[in-house]
């Protein structure tokens, strides 16, 4: 077996899997650049979140987990769909949403992807097969099932990627979804992004399990696998197997991807450095960072130079700063906008919308 010069990649080398062999040098570099962009966006968002008056609400940062969303999005074809929970910025950018529309949404501006009506947890881009951005833990898991149902109903060959955190696996809606997925043969892939903590409660303190969380799939006679999330090749290789199972066999899977978030559950998480030791956080940052490891891979493969990687960082950071400027310069929604986008029929001024009173304001 081929071995890598980097000590931190998985013992199995997933570079040789067909889906990774098919990656061109340009695509590999682009994916590095995407991960760097995601992180730069969030760093800039964090900086502005801390600036009084710039943003409201929560900010759930994805920093440390970038290989997962970017790896998954890189596998999506025209009939594949994605949905996730509230830690959604990376998924949004990875499917091709712009920093401008995302940053403007954080700033609550009318130019935001959701016109300032959703905020940090609710980014959407149906035109890019991205269905949110959902705030209630595991509330999106039946929706992801429904996306798979829709794919199957329309007779398309596709997969619905439904992301959830390790804290979501104990919600009833998720288990109902797993049963339905297996029972109906729905082409959905549940991707557990396991960052070890459901807010401040560790996996061991929140979940009963034998070896891992994905293993619960056995109870539903469903395929499952565990992925080392710091290895970008492994993320792609194993997710692709599950997506192909969905596309070709119309069968669901659970893929548990071990990963780590450097920041708290949200920026408002006051105990982010208490329930995890500083040593633990430092270890992940230093030895298991998915961007560093992917960069090292590309260096090892002689596809980029350190200098180029630095340039990506600079460009991403400049793009993120530009998006802040765009957001700041954008108009806020108006009071009149509050009652837009409630009903499709009233928004479209249909005949049906003219019958009866829809809104009950003073």
């Amino acid at each position: 077996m081929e071995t890598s010069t980097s000590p931190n990649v998985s013992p199995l080398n997933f570079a040789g899997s067909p889906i990774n062999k098919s990656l061109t040098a340009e695509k590999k570099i682009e994916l590095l650049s995407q991960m760097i962009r995601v992180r730069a966006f969030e760093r800039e968002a964090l900086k502005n979140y801390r600036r009084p008056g710039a943003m409201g609400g929560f900010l759930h940062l994805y920093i440390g987990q970038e290989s997962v969303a970017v790896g998954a999005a890189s596998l999506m074809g025209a009939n594949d769909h994605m949905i996730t929970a509230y830690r959604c910025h990376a998924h949004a950018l990875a499917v091709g949403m712009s920093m401008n529309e995302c940053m403007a949404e954080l700033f609550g501006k009318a130019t935001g992807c959701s016109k300032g009506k959703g905020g940090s947890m609710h980014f959407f881009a149906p035109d890019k097969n991205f269905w949110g951005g959902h705030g209630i833990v595991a509330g999106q898991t039946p929706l992801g099932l429904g996306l798979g149902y829709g794919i199957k109903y329309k007779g398309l060959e596709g997969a619905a990627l439904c992301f959830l955190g390790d804290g979501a696996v104990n919600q009833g809606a998720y288990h109902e979804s797993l049963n339905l997925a297996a029972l109906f043969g729905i082409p959905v892939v549940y991707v557990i992004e396991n960052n070890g903590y459901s807010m401040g409660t560790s996996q061991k303190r929140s979940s009963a399990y034998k070896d891992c969380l994905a293993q619960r799939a056995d109870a539903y006679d469903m395929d499952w696998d565990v992925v080392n999330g710091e290895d970008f090749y492994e993320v792609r290789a194993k997710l692709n197997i599950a997506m192909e199972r969905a596309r070709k066999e119309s069968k669901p899977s659970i893929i548990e991807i071990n990963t780590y978030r450097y920041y708290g559950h949200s920026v408002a998480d006051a105990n982010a450095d208490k329930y995890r030791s500083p040593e633990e956080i430092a270890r992940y940052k230093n030895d298991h960072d998915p961007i560093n490891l992917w960069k090292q891979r590309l260096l090892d493969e002689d596809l980029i130079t350190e200098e180029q990687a630095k340039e990506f960082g600079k460009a991403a950071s400049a793009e993120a700063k530009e998006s802040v400027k765009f957001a700041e310069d954008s108009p806020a929604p108006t009071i009149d906008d509050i009652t837009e986008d409630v009903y499709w029929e009233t928004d479209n001024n249909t005949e049906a919308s003219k019958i009866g009173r829809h809104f009950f304001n003073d």
Partner: protein
Amino acid sequence: MREIEYRDALNEAFDEELTRDENVVIMGEEVAQYNGAYKVTKGLWEKWGDKRIVDTPISEAGFIGMGIGASMLGVRPVMELMFWSFHSVAFDQLVNNAACCRYMSGGLINVPIVVRGPANGGTNVGATHSHTPEGIFAAFPGLKVCSPATPADAKGLMKSAIRDNDPVYVMENTTLYGIKGHVPDPADGDFTIPLGKADIKREGTDISLIAHGASVLRCLEAAEILQSEHGINAEVLDLRSIRPLDQEAIIATVKKTNRAVLVDESKPFCGVSAQIATLIQEYAFDYLDAPVKRVCTIDAPAIYSPHVESDQLPNAKRIVAQVLTIA
């Protein structure tokens, strides 16, 4: 005109919409092979097969959420809750995902689903199976709610609900499923009743009885008693749709009769009738010759006892008594 049962009127609505739109799917517990817990979907599975008529496991949050997700890709699920009372186990899907996805996406998404089933008391099944949540769901912007009282309204409203591009929750009634009424023959053309349009079920001059669902029938019974025993000519306005709401019809009948009793199977606190009362005081205050009165379900969880449950709900006796306090 032919007479058919309320359940058959609904069945006809499904059959016609299944024919009209290949994306319409009926799903729920026992709707297919069992022919429906109340036979509302009888024969549809045999005719339309597994793809269009789908039996689900007892997983209301799971299958309603699934329907919402599927609707985002253009499927139009019509989902049965065997009892609307079971809304509580699917509440997150019903009020967050169905009602708010459009809004939170800035209008990029719409959720063209129907959730339907019976929502009523009066069958001695105890508190957990007797909820009437029309007011609860009408309180969520993004949702639409209707509650048909007659077979014709059931068919016409159901067809409109299925065609509507927003989530519509149709509250039916187990005590009405077997009641017969006039429903236009399908041969005479496509029959729909728009959401948001009330209907005067009995013309009158002395007092307005405003109701929805089975309470409309109780009002009609009361109106006959009021006429024959008290010489009071009551008008009965059937709201049919709770949201959108036909405010014009409400105000018009109050302006005509100058008195109103609101009859509502909801509980009194913040029930549908509470909303109607505030609209009347705001838009018809000067036309009132008496305070607006209400007859709601007596404010306690639904009692089981067959000896008294019918008195916990609005009935003709309670309506007549309330009318006599102001007429």
